[in-house]
């Protein structure tokens, strides 16, 4: 191909000066077929729009990634808190702890329950008063629980076991020294506060 190109210019150069100036005029069809600037602009703008959209999208996605990372960290912390609290609750709810506290509050269990049958109002069972010594613990928990070590009784804050835990905290708040022997002022000794019934 380069060989034929090398030959061609020679005759043309020879006749150049003799010929009049001739220019090829583009036909209407050709002019119409030529691309317009508008199209180019639209194309370029579209391209930019796509780039921009992609950029914004990836910014959005990575923003989401940070939000997810933050929420996941938060979830982890909350799960830890939840688990620690559940653990604490389960330990405090263990029968050893409940029974020790109940007894330190002066509660006793009645070994002879009596039932009221609703269908005919019959009282079933032989009623007997609970004995003061009927507490199941007998003063010491013999069923060990390592997790309860260092967990104080609810009455521990009051210095000595009081018959009513609700009142005892109020009573000892201001007067730690003067509570020895004196009953809680809000409720007379031996009386339980009336339950709220509907």
């Amino acid at each position: 191909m380069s060989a034929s190109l090398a030959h061609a210019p020679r005759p043309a150069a020879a006749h150049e000066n003799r010929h009049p100036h001739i220019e090829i005029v583009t036909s209407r069809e050709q002019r119409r077929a030529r691309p317009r600037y508008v199209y180019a602009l639209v194309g370029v703008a579209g391209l930019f729009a796509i780039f921009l959209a992609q950029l914004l999208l990836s910014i959005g996605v990575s923003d989401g990634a940070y939000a997810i990372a933050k929420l996941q960290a938060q979830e982890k912390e909350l799960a830890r808190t939840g688990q620690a609290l559940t653990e604490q609750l389960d330990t405090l709810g263990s029968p050893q702890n409940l029974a020790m506290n109940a007894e330190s509050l002066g509660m006793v269990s009645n070994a002879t329950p009596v039932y009221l049958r609703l269908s005919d109002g019959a009282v079933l069972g032989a009623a007997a008063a609970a004995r003061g010594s009927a507490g199941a613990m007998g003063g010491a928990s013999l069923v060990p629980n390592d997790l309860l070590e260092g967990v104080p009784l609810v009455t521990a804050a009051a210095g000595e076991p009081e018959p009513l835990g609700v009142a005892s905290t109020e009573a000892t708040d201001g007067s730690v020294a003067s509570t020895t022997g004196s009953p809680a002022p809000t409720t007379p000794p031996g009386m339980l506060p009336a339950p709220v019934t509907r």
Partner: protein
Amino acid sequence: MVREQRSTRMRLALSIVLTFAIVAVFVVRLVDIQLVRAEALNAASLDKRSVPMTSYGVRGDIVDANGVVLADSVDRYDITASPRLLLSGSNTTGSEMTVLDKLKLIAEETGQDPNDLMLALTADPESDFAYLAKGVTVDVFRAVRDLDIGGVFFELRPSRTYPLGAVGGNLVGFIGTDGPQAGVEFKENDCLASTNGTSTYERGADGVRIPGSTVTTTEVKNGGTIRLTIDSDLQWFAQQQLAQKAQALGADWATAIVVRVSDGHLMAVADYPSVDPNNVNGVPTTALGSLAFSTPFEPGSTFKAMTVASLLDAGVISPSTQVVAPGRYVFPNGDYIKDAWAHDDLRLTTAGILMNSSNTGISVISERLDAESRRNYLLKFGLNERTAVGFAGESGGSVPETRNWDQITNFAVQFGQGVTATAAQVASIYQTLGNDGVRQPLTLVEGCQWPDGTVTSLPPTEGVRAVSERAATQTVEMLETVTTQGGLRSILSMPGYRVAAKTGTAEVAENGRYTSDRIVSVAGLAPAEDPQYAVVVTFGKPDTIKTSAAAAPTFATIMTQVLKTFRVTPSTEAAPAIPVTW
């Protein structure tokens, strides 16, 4: 002209060759990178960005019949440190703090001695890894983390706690460093065990995970929840009562079992001593399992109820059969069987034999049935084989072949000497008597509930008839005379309820001779007119009282609590008067 053309061709050829050579080099390199070394390069590049992650599967909980958690999986943390970083003094906070100052801060939170921590660090100062504290709680972990000391790191250590401590500790078992060691933790490990998941994700320069880059290689799988038949409150009560009495009596060991008669479900299995799974080292190794399942012993007179039921079923006696129980049942060679108290000939009915717990009386009525048939009845009551619970380390006791029975053993097995059974088997006998003669498989595990809600490991429910309904009912009626007319009636009777019970005072054999040691027990059913719960209380080798009177108060206390816990309706009719003498 020609030379010019040639040189043009030469240059053309040269450039073509060069082009192809360069392309060839690129292709070779491309193949090398993309195909030959692709994996290694991929891995290396991934290593730069990707982070491997272990997601810990959670070992399943063990809960009681009401859903109270007995064994729980919790997160604990190991605090580790890089001695090299710490000792060289490069840190993020104030560089004027000495290493010991930092360790003091940590020790304050973990409750350790800072000098111990220093020792741990200086053991290998060039190392990049040393443990400072193992298994600390979330609170401690957070406190130490907030100190923000450079060179200190944290590792998750999934751990196990037992919120109720020793309540059911004998049954639940525990986990050692090598995995589950005892009890349900060991036996039901297939259900409880979890699988850790592994995955990798890619992270950006600031450590934030790149979205969509997580690749999971192993799915994390949580363990299932094991539900026991135990009622944890009752279990605690039984353990507390048992321990109190066992300490007062100076007993070596003690067990108390509560069984629901209708289906053989164990409501409580208390052992003394029993392990607190949170502190396994607190008890001798013999107390790590459940004595009620692992320890066979000669149970003594509690077997008499089974003997009477068997003979009733065989039709050789009736409740009113009149027997003369001699003071001594003498064999031709001069050996003899006697009762716990000296007496002349007693004119007893079958009920009277049970009420008085007469060994000679039992021997007289046992003459009426051949040894092989009597042994078959023992086997039908579940002796000589392990219970359906299949507890870790469970024993099945032993009932020797009849050809090995000598003349004394021939009758002694009928009152619980010369044979051994576990406390669980004795409980099973009374369950059978209370359940109209049908022995239900003892059940400790209700099932394994998987995270998707399916339940597997369901216990067997097929019962085996040991004796006829009539024989069982009559036996329970006769057992009621023990609490209405027997010597321990003041202790064993419970206001409002009819109770059937049998005492047992068994001699303990050591090295082939019976010693002065005793195993005392009381087994019984309530309410007697329609038994719902069977309770067996046993004390091994008590020091202060060596008769069944030692076990009776605890039996009564536990039985009362059982009736209260399960809201058993009090009896409305008085016990029938059954003649015990003639």
